[in-house]
């Protein structure tokens, strides 16, 4: 799994951090998403897929 972000799309909802806190964080100043681990281990994959799916700004892309 490889994750990419479109930070310009990010609306700072923070849903990804709630779902997958080991993979995503938010910048302190404006809440924009920060990628902690672009290639997370298998046990994180389900959470990452969910984070990508529910991101209200469609800012997270997951590549196989």
């Amino acid at each position, binding site marked *: 799994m490889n994750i990419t972000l479109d930070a310009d799309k990010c*609306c*700072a909802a*923070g849903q990804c*951090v709630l779902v997958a806190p080991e993979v995503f964080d*938010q910048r302190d100043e404006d*809440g924009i998403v920060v990628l902690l681990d672009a290639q997370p281990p298998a046990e994180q994959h389900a959470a990452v897929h969910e984070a990508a*799916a529910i991101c*209200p700004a469609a800012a997270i892309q997951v590549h196989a």
Partner: protein
Amino acid sequence: MTVGRIAVVGASAAGLAAVEALRRGGWTGALTLIGDEPHLPYDRPPLSKQLLSGDWQADRLGLRTAGQLDTLDLDLRLGTRATALDTVTRTVTLADGQRLECAGVIVATGVRARTLPGLAGTAGIHTLRTLDDALGLQTWLSGASGAPRRLVVAGNGVLGCEAAAVARELGHEVTLVGRDPLPMGRLVGDGTGALLADAHERHGVRMLTGSLDGVKTADGHVTGVRLADGTALEADTVLLAIGSEPAVDWLRADAALDTSDGLRCDEYCAAAPGIYAAGDVARWYHPGHGRHLRIEHRMNATEQAMAAARNLLAELGATEDERRPFTPVPYFWSDQYGMKLQAYGVLAGADRAETVLLDKEQRQVAALYGRDGLATGVLAAGLPPRQIRGLRAVIATPGPWDEAHARLLAAVGGQ
């Protein structure tokens, strides 16, 4: 067992999330996605923001590439309208008369922009719901003449306020007309509404309280508007942001469905056996709030579609899962002049709202909303992300007002 067909009607965020969740959930049967617009599924929130401002081109709004959609093996029907649903036989009828017999149906037809009668064909009158709507308005806003022109925005809800902010930042003369004295006031209450009014005023938006009574035209082009109190305003372009109507006309013929204010569903998002709904069109029973809710927010479209898909597969016996009630913590955001509002829970229908103004200059605010003695929603602007995530916990489950209020103050360090 996964036989037959599932039809998902509506190809926007909810419809797309539904077909993806159905495939992820193991549905290997036929899967039809029906959309009345000609475009591949795209994202709507940027329409009133990045697309309208000209920062983004339309191709950036696509939710999936054609290649990604191919992997779903869809029977994709774009530019196609569903005209009827028979809930007994689970048959969807299309505008061309085709009838699709289905094992299950997910209704995700969203809402339509409300308009005023008699304006069809009048140049300069816009709504802002679809990509084509947004491109039409954007073309005007980016007008080649370069001179600021006069825009009247009718409606001061979220959409009207966002569009007014973008148009003003592009240098147009903007008048924002709304029934509520404060921008978004009916949704966010007086405290936050006053903060928004201040922002619009500082940027030079003229705000009027009133409602549109009609438009003046010359040679088929709008030249101004009349308000109900007799006020006349000159305008080169008018944006109607006066609310929306659930797209349920096509469902009305089936007496088994309740289509008053959206398609009424139970806590599983089911409207009838094998018939589910998701997104802006769905009015479902939220057990945590103890009432039916219909939520026109982007995140709900996806979350509810995933829940509806899961529950439909469970009902059809296509998975081992049990059906589960859909009990989300709703979320919405709005951007105006670099100011971001974020809200969790339910603000609409509140009988009580209290705003804690933390710093007026920095536009830092937190607000609590409640109904029947319970706190149901919270809103924040200008707060650090950790604090905002903490506020979500305050109302994740509706609880006693006083308790939530104390937790809100503790979270934001207010008095």
